[in-house]
């Protein structure tokens, strides 16, 4: 279970650019929930993910993952709880290293790294099998540098890396937004498959309302750093874009969200 309690974050406090990015957000996410997050630009979606993953520390409030208070843990020490995928496909992998080396690094998420061999023979077969699931032919290219892969391939690999050692919480930060529509659909399909097969607790930020409605069992909407709306269960399943626009159109200035 993941709990956010009264998170507040103000940027550039005391200057004319002061911006309250997170204004007392509280949220509880049960194990196995797949939460989609919408909201216009500046609503605090990415800030929320950054607070959870430790890129920023909140000014107020606390963050619990499985009853562990992680509010003040540095980023690298939260790794054992979290898998995160960014919008930019280049951000999730090390380009100058091979596919199997990237997977081996992800394999050790949050654990001590010693002088043992990086890519173990015994794990290599496992990597090959897991890569087969992507259906991109990467299982035959274990020793190829990641820089040789396309954006979609890299993002799929990142997804695999983020879920390889089963994080307590998977954070997806508009992870299909930078891909062409066809590839985006493939990556999203793959996400759905991995998340549901492993019952991963997931938070997915998206700019695409259709995506937010179609996927996940909970949808929340952020507005000016606050929780504006949340819907789950049967109500979530029967939700339509029109309904959301009708209720919140005024707050959703972001046109991209509506398409």
């Amino acid at each position, binding site marked *: 279970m993941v709990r956010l309690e009264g998170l507040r974050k103000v940027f550039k406090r005391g200057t004319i650019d002061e911006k309250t990015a997170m204004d007392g957000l509280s949220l509880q996410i049960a194990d196995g929930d797949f939460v989609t997050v919408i909201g216009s630009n500046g609503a605090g979606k990415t800030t929320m993910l950054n607070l959870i*993953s430790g890129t920023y520390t909140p000014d107020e409030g606390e963050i619990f993952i499985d009853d562990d208070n992680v509010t003040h843990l*540095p*980023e*690298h*020490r939260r*790794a*054992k709880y*979290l898998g*995160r995928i*960014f919008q930019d496909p*280049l*951000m*999730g*992998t*090390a*380009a*100058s*290293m*091979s596919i199997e*080396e990237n997977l*081996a*690094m*992800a394999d*050790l*998420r*949050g*654990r001590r*790294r*010693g*002088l*043992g*061999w*990086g*890519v173990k023979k015994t794990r290599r077969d496992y990597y090959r099998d897991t890569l087969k699931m992507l259906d991109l032919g990467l299982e035959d290219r274990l*020793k*190829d*540098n990641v*820089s*040789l892969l396309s954006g979609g391939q890299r993002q799929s690999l990142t997804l695999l*890396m983020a879920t390889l050692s089963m994080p307590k919480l998977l954070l997806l930060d508009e992870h299909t937004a930078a891909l062409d529509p066809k590839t985006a659909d493939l990556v999203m399909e793959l996400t759905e498959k991995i998340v549901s097969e492993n019952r991963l607790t997931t938070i997915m930020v998206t700019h695409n309302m259709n995506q937010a409605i179609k996927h996940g069992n909970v949808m929340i909407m952020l507005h000016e750093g606050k929780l504006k709306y949340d819907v789950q269960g049967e109500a979530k399943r029967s939700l339509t874009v029109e309904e959301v626009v009708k209720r919140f159109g005024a707050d959703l200035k972001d046109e991209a969200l509506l398409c």
Partner: protein
Amino acid sequence: MVLSGFLRTVPVSLEQGLAYALVALGIVITFRVLAFPDLTVDGSFPLGAAVTARLLTLDVDPLLSILVAVFAGFLAGCCTGLLNTRLKINSLLSGILMMTILYSVNLRIMGRSNIQLLTVDTFLTPLENLDMNRFIPMIGFFVLVSFAFKFLTDLYLHTQMGLAMRATGDNEQMIRTLGVNTDNMTVLGLGISNAFVALSGSLVAQSQGFADVGMGIGMIVIGLASIIIGESMVGVRTGKKSVMRLTLAALVGSVIYKFIIAVGLRMGLAPTDLKMATGVMVILALGVPALKGGKEGKLHLRGV
């Protein structure tokens, strides 16, 4: 006649090139693996020489004096890393600060600006006393040392920790989200790199028979020139076995560089112009692709 003159430069270039190869290897770790442009090298090279020279004149065991020099280099590198990661001082400036500080440290260690080692027994003395041309055992020794450290580096960079270090230079955000403290990785990498450089300084001082406080000036540029030459000869752009190629490039480049310089000197290049020639060499290597407008080789020239 002319040809035999060139041939005579071969053993000298080999010996010197291999002795300096550890500097290039160290620079590979900072510039190429960590993408950290570390200038500590100009100070840690004479540091290794100074520590060894001082200890040898105090009749300390030669091997021990080398080990202490290596450790001193390791500490110097760690200091640069700490300036950068803990005090958030820019990477170039961190190196320059340490380099400057080390100048005074080296003078303190030696007590004067140079120490001659011709009259004391060094680690290399037994090799020099063998009943054969001096070059044979010396080159053999330096081949052994440089390749041993090359293979150790290759092995290390394929361990779990080594992968994390390479990822720190490649994609810091990514490896941090996988639970690696990238600050520690940077400090450790700089330490290892400067330990190599100090070892090179220590061995060079022993083979040339003196340590001088100014012997590190321009070392970073020489090392970079070596790497660039080596990379163009070995070809590091192909993806597979990239680490092995990088470290091999350091050794090959270092030898070829010394050979080019020896040939240059034979052809009338003034020794005083050496550093300028080296600098121009690096500028051309880095600048020409940019003038051509090519973007390829961006990763290949990481750290500069």
